[in-house]
């Protein structure tokens, strides 16, 4: 593999990992808000 292959692989991996984590946090937040209902959603930390 050329240097460019490792560079593209590394940058792509970083993008996928960060996007995956953001997506996971986002979906768990939505689920928790849905379970709590509208009354407790408005209470921000």
């Amino acid at each position, binding site marked *: 593999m050329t240097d460019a292959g490792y560079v593209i692989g*590394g*940058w792509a*991996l970083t993008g996928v*990992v960060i996007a995956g984590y953001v997506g996971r946090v986002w979906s768990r937040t939505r689920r928790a808000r849905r379970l709590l209902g509208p009354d407790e959603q408005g209470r*921000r*930390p």
Partner: protein
Amino acid sequence: MQKFWTRRGTAVLGGLTVVSLAVLVVLGLFVSDPDFQQGDAVRLMYLHVPAAWISYLAYGVTSLASALYLWKRTRAQVWDTLAGASAEIGVLFTGLTLALGSLWGRPVWNVWWAWDARIVSTAVLFFLYLGYLALRKVPAESAVRARRCSIAALVAFVDVPVVHFSVEWWRTLHQKGTVFNRELNPSIQGNLAWALLSGVVAFTFLYLYLLERRYRLALLEEAVEGRELDAAIAERRAEAEAVPGARGVPERVV
């Protein structure tokens, strides 16, 4: 805390994160010259070094929050929640540091892995905080769990200076500090230095944004857990009261 975490603050932080990541992509992939020795492989440094920096920062925040929980005068559940949120991000970025280091090592050193002091101590750090996250999942009363996790976080943090100074203390394949070396004389200049700096800034904003989101998620999940527990206790109490002659279920003590 409520005043600090405003919706506008979150939006501003998110915007800064997106903009700084875009600047990093432009500087790191298009503006930066190839290194005279490493060629284009140096472009992996703009992710690897900031990811390692975020590991240090995340574990530093975890340790500080854990110490504040253990100190009686500042003890509050919020510190334990913050410590857990920061540690999870730290583990994510330590894993990324190791993976990027491996991808960088293959073209530069011709190996994916080496039993080198810096690499091994970083892997140990990864597993220490993975263990810390596992410890947080062990069922226990919240104060007991918070105390044991705070102690574990402080013990695990001992490895952070070992990771950082490993390249000074032992002969390693890994290069010495590029910026924070013993002479405090950065061995990087020109547009390579700007690309590295933009990586550090972008990842710092990203860390702060992820921490805010993860911390808020932890609070929501704690609220859901408490609600489910209340519902389960109410159900058991109703069952017990339905049985003739039963003494009922004691009041919630959690």
